[in-house]
């Protein structure tokens, strides 16, 4: 069974060395939240993840969730672990102190999210959905609703969900039919069915707060007529909690995340309240969705990291064959497979991905902090532009590559990886949902190309292009960085060309943009990784040989991983560039009947 060690050193590196999260202490409300405090907290949470939550991962997968008489039972140990987190205050890391939260900056939640998801994705979902619901309510609900719900969500006493999907409304939320009828007292009665609702019903908390997309009477068709409502499982009546007409009809049997209940939820005249304005539900839900998309990008990173650790452990222990250049460990019966070039290729691919993804996640997260907390409106705008641009990339690129990485890690373990007892195949199965939920990766690519790329006449895009161009200009003469800067420059130039081409072609035919979207997103992802890897290499070279022995090893490995990334992985961007420029004709002219 793979074990898990939280990558605290690398988290500290990306947030406090590569980026300057320490500077957040200058923002109002975060004065006390220095790196010392945040990392001490992460160390303690890491222990809980490693010792309590990760050991529930394989048994939870084996046992799954049970559905009986409308009730969902989570696997053994989940409730206790959930209570431990809630009682320790870990469910309210970034919640506002006014509502009983700890008031830490967003990146604390993101680091925590990686550790929790890597330890046990199914388990982590019960909690991350709650914090997503918290955010949507905090940003958009009336003060009265905030006062009522937020303290319960922050303390973890109540859990949250997001109810978007219906049988006929998946990617296309404009087709949502759930009805919300006003009762005349400011509340609404909801009737309809939602499906695929994660954590829709469970035994972790006494109450579950659903954020539901629905239509008010006379609402315009499509996404312009959708409202967001808050509907609890139990509503208060005469000071007592009573059932509110929200029931779970069944749970799905799935390929992965088996310990996360995916529920059909029936609303039978359930009482709810409007969050935000009528028909403006999509806007409010986007807060939730953006936070959730970033979180799903972290699912990809987290499972890849957990799988990578399992693969490394296996590759050190498994003795097969001899190194091609002669035995490396002659005293052993055979060399550990770690010596073989092909195994090293796989392990380094895993590493270059996880460390790159951690950096991209950090960059996006800190942009969100700027957007929400920076006193300077220009910085706020810049943070918002960059975060909304990068969010679909983080979601799709990190889950596509994250899934690929779990698969590579399994391959390292040979036949053992394929067996159930070994624990590696669970990472692959669990990770398979990540390119699907929270908006499929195809939808993310359309979001990037159709919405984010042209947003604000290209201003959002420039928030990414400008720092890359500046970095390239500043480092052009840096001999030591040449091996990183040159391939970055080449890939970046192609991204710019692809962007121009796409902008031009989209004017001619929207199919061009649609057909190119996924390749464009991947090209974008590779360039974003390359930019961050070049910056990480620069920093690691500056710190080369400095600090204690562990640090020396850390920075040395960083530079070497960067080298592997640029030489052996970044070339993949070329394929996306070429495929995209080929245009949509071969895709679109194929007759529908011939499929």
């Amino acid at each position, binding site marked *: 069974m793979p074990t898990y060690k939280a990558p605290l050193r690398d988290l500290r590196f990306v947030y406090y060395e590569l980026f300057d999260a320490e500077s957040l202490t200058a923002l109002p409300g975060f004065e006390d939240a220095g790196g010392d405090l945040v990392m001490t907290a992460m160390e303690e*949470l890491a222990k809980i993840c490693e010792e309590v939550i990760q050991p529930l991962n394989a048994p939870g997968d084996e046992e799954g969730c049970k559905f009986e008489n409308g009730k969902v039972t989570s696997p053994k140990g989940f409730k206790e672990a959930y209570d431990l987190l809630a009682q320790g205050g*870990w469910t309210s890391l970034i919640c506002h102190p006014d509502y009983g939260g700890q008031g830490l900056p967003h990146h604390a939640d993101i680091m925590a999210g990686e550790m929790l998801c890597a330890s046990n994705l199914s388990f982590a979902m019960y909690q991350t959905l709650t914090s997503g619901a918290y955010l949507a309510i905090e940003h958009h609900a009336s003060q009265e609703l905030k006062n009522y719900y937020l303290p319960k969500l922050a303390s973890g006493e109540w859990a949250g969900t997001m109810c978007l999907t219906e049988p006929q409304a998946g990617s296309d939320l404009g087709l949502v039919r759930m009805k919300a009828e006003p009762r005349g007292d400011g509340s609404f009665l909801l009737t309809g069915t939602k499906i695929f609702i994660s954590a829709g019903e469970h035994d972790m908390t006494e109450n579950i707060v659903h954020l539901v997309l629905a239509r008010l009477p006379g609402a315009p068709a499509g996404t312009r007529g959708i409202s967001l409502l808050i509907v609890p499982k139990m509503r208060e009546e005469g000071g007592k909690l009573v059932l509110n007409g929200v029931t779970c009809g069944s749970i799905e049997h799935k390929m992965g995340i088996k310990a996360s209940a995916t529920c059909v939820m029936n609303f039978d005249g359930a009482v709810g309240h409007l969050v935000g304005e009528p028909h403006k539900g999509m806007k409010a839900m986007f807060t939730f969705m953006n936070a959730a998309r970033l979180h799903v990008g972290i699912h990809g990173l987290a499972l890849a990291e957990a799988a990578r650790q399992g693969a490394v452990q296996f590759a050190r222990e498994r003795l097969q064959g001899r190194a091609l250049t002669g035995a490396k460990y002659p005293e052993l019966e055979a060399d550990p497979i770690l010596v073989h070039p092909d195994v090293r290729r796989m392990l380094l691919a895993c590493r270059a991905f996880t460390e790159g993804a951690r950096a991209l996640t950090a960059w996006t997260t800190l942009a969100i902090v700027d957007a929400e907390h920076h006193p300077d409106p220009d910085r706020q705008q810049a943070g918002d532009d960059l975060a909304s641009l990068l969010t679909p990339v983080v979601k799709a690129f990190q889950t596509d590559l994250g899934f690929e990485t779990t698969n590579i890690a399994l391959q390292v373990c040979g036949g053992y990886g394929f067996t159930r007892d070994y624990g590696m195949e669970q990472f692959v199965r669990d990770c398979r949902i990540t390119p699907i939920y929270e908006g499929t990766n195809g939808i993310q690519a359309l979001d990037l190309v159709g919405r984010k790329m042209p947003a604000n006449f290209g201003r959002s895009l420039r928030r990414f292009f400008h720092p890359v161009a500046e970095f390239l200009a500043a480092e052009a003469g840096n001999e030591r960085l040449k091996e990183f800067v040159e391939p970055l420059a080449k890939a970046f130039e192609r991204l710019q060309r692809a962007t121009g081409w796409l902008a031009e072609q989209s004017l001619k035919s929207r199919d061009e943009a649609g057909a190119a979207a996924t390749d464009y997103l991947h090209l974008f992802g590779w360039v974003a990784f390359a930019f961050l890897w070049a910056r990480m290499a620069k920093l690691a070279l500056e710190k080369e040989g400095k600090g204690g022995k*562990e*640090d020396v090893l850390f920075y040395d490995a960083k530079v070497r991983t960067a080298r592997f990334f640029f030489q052996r992985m970044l070339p993949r961007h070329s394929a996306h560039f070429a495929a995209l420029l080929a245009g949509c004709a071969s895709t679109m002219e194929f007759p529908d009947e011939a499929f």
Partner: protein
Amino acid sequence: MKIAVCVKQVPDPEARLRVGADGAWIDEEGVAFVLNESDEYAVEEALRIAERTGGEVIAFGLGPERTREALRKVLALGASRAVLLSDPALLGGDALATGRALAAAIRQEGADLVLTGSASSDLGYAATGSVIAGELGWPHAWLVMGVELAEDRRSVRITREMEGGMNELSAVVLPAVIQVQAGINHPRYASLKGIMAAKKKEIREVAAAELGVDAGRLGRAGSRLETVSVALPVSGREVEWIAGDAAAVAAALVTKLEQEAKVLR
């Protein structure tokens, strides 16, 4: 009820150790230091007693400046204050000199009960607790698997683990020094609130001169034991497989243990 708990910071058990340049200790560079595991049980026991009695826990740590981290950790777990003995004149001593300094600091602070772990995972003398008791002139118990405060709070009933699965139950009059056994409880995790609160709690530094103990009895100067050298155990790679059925393997093994290893006669 005022409970003193003594904690030490030790190299992370998972750290890769190297012998230092002087050959008498490890090379501490790049080694992570953590709260000594068996002290975690003492801290937990102290917190539980304090919670039951409405008392307070005060943590004492002797060691270099980095010991502050271990104390901060205990504060995060719920201790109300801490005392740090990091004066160079107090460092590098054996259990005798270390126990004397801790006892002096505890005497100044005043305590009804002192709890310590069973042993440190680096040096493993398991003697500091007894020295503290000796210095204070208080009763002392070791290998304690259960601590229960008497109704009148004048004594504790303790359970000690004896050989052969037997327990020894006794009453110890307070104030006393109790050295608890690892496994006596399940140490808690620090809560986020605790960690945040710990930042603001007091860690009082006490200098050697403030202890009222003759300088010659403290630190290296006051030690009777000198570590001459340390070495990593030689890892042998020679493994001999004894093949055959169980009876034959057992017989061959006995012969080898008698004749080659000479551990059986």
